[in-house]
């Protein structure tokens, strides 16, 4: 678990839609050692707690990481007001990411603001990937082009059908499974979605990894605040999203 707390420089700021921003942050160490699915913990102004945001892309060549975040409350609001050249205090890379070793064919399933971290997975997977991306509507659709250039096949689902197909990612998943053999599913998104994806994966016996969210204190495993219930042969216990996760094997998660 190597990580740093450093000032990164915001070298590019883009607005992907009315509430979602993409920041390209230059930070040598973090970009050097980060792996797909890890996150950074960002100091937002005078806020007591840092805000965890997943790493969306890792550009080792330019010593950069890319993050994509949605403005939800005061912390992300503050962050969205940072400007190019500003210094941003970030801690990372944190947590355990996805396994990206060669493993047959992978299916990435992202929902909403859970889509961005899967891009880092698509970029570093040593095997082919397909992706299913779910959004509310056309307005909230993000990163479709980026996924299209990295994945074999990308299916976009919107709840209202204004982009791609109408329906949920699980609808697309069921269809995909009829014609494909996947060795692993990597998923990130709202908890109900992750639970549904896990159930389908488990039923047909595909390895499935999910990236969970929980409110955090330290972000590094020291405070035991970010508990999530997991099960193993020894019974149920609280694991910690920041250190044991955020990526968990779906069959260990107690939903």
């Amino acid at each position, binding site marked *: *678990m190597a990580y740093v707390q450093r000032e990164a420089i915001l070298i590019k700021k883009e607005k992907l839609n009315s509430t979602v921003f993409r920041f390209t942050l230059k930070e040598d160490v973090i970009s050097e050692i980060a792996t797909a699915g890890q996150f950074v913990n960002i100091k937002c102004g005078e806020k007591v*707690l*840092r805000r965890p945001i997943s790493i969306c892309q890792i550009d080792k060549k330019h010593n950069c990481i890319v993050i994509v975040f949605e403005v939800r409350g005061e912390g992300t609001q503050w962050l969205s007001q940072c400007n190019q050249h500003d210094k941003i205090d970030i801690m990372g890379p944190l947590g355990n990411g996805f396994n990206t070793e060669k493993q047959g064919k992978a299916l990435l399933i992202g929902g909403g603001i859970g889509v961005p971290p899967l891009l880092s997975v698509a970029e570093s997977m040593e095997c082919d990937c397909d992706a299913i991306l779910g959004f509310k509507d056309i307005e909230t659709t993000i990163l479709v082009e980026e996924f299209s250039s990295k994945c074999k096949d990308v299916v976009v689902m919107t709840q209202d059908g204004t982009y791609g197909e109408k329906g949920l990612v699980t609808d697309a998943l069921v269809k995909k499974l009829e014609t494909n053999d996947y060795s692993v599913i990597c998923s990130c998104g709202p908890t109900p979605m992750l639970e549904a994806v896990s159930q389908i994966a488990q039923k047909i016996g595909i390895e499935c990894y999910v990236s969970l969210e929980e*409110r955090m*204190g*330290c972000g590094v495993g020291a*405070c*035991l605040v970010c508990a999530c219930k997991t099960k193993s042969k020894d019974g149920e216990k609280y694991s910690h999203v920041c250190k044991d996760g955020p990526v968990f094997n779906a069959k260990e998660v107690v939903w």
Partner: protein
Amino acid sequence: MANMGLFIADVFFKNPVITASGTFGFGREYNELYPIGKLGGVSCKGTTLLERMGNPPPRIVETPSGILNSVGLQNPGIEHFIKEDLGWLKSQGTVAIANVAGSTLEDYCKVAEILSDTDVDMIELNISCPNVKEGGVSFGTSASSVENITEQVKMRSSKPVMIKLTPNVTDIAEIAKAAESGGADAISLINTLTGMRIDINTRRPILKNNTGGLSGRAVFPVAVRMVWQVAQAVSIPVVGMGGIATWQDAVEMMLAGACAIQVGTANFTDAYTPIKIIDGLEKYLDDNGIKDIKEIVGKAEMW
């Protein structure tokens, strides 16, 4: 350069900056950022006789200049601490303080007894955890029970015992005196102030435990006041905490009467806080021609 070292109950601290229980694990994680051997001491995560699962999440919520937590003493039990963590911590060259909690008097005593045969430097008796029904807070709110538990634990322990007080009481000085007359070697305060936040959309408390403990800068003025009251009331050493985030806060707490300080919540905001405080204190002493950190302890003069 000024002398930063001090003794609390015969235990030598190279400087007065200790990381607060529950916010710093056993030090391993932060040792990635800086050698924790630079710290005066580490107060470990609250440990009980047997493993505890802790409370269901969410366990934290941010509040104005503070946080509420309801971790609820999740820990792998005292034996695990001794086997897995204590040795490593000791080898880092800082003072290792075991923070002990329990449900019964006997629990506390047993843990103290077990720790007596270890390398641990000091016991911090957490009779003030507000986040579990049986977290000891009931022991901490009446003077007679504080005196009693202190006496009992002291009888079974060969290590110095520091009693950690809860601020959720009417008369903190009375409680501190009870700890002193029970034989406490030192007193630390404050633990968290009990609080609650409710999500107005779900109409449910944000913490699954309903209530939690308030810490962080918001509580600093209350902590300074209580440390001052306690320092006036007892003659054993007082370790002050609650909202300390800068070296100026540390100086203020020491002027109020703390011979050492602990840093908790501020670690979350800036992991280097304890180091910045140590450096800041050193510079403060040098800039002001103060030869020894002990010279500022309790030096606030009342109007």
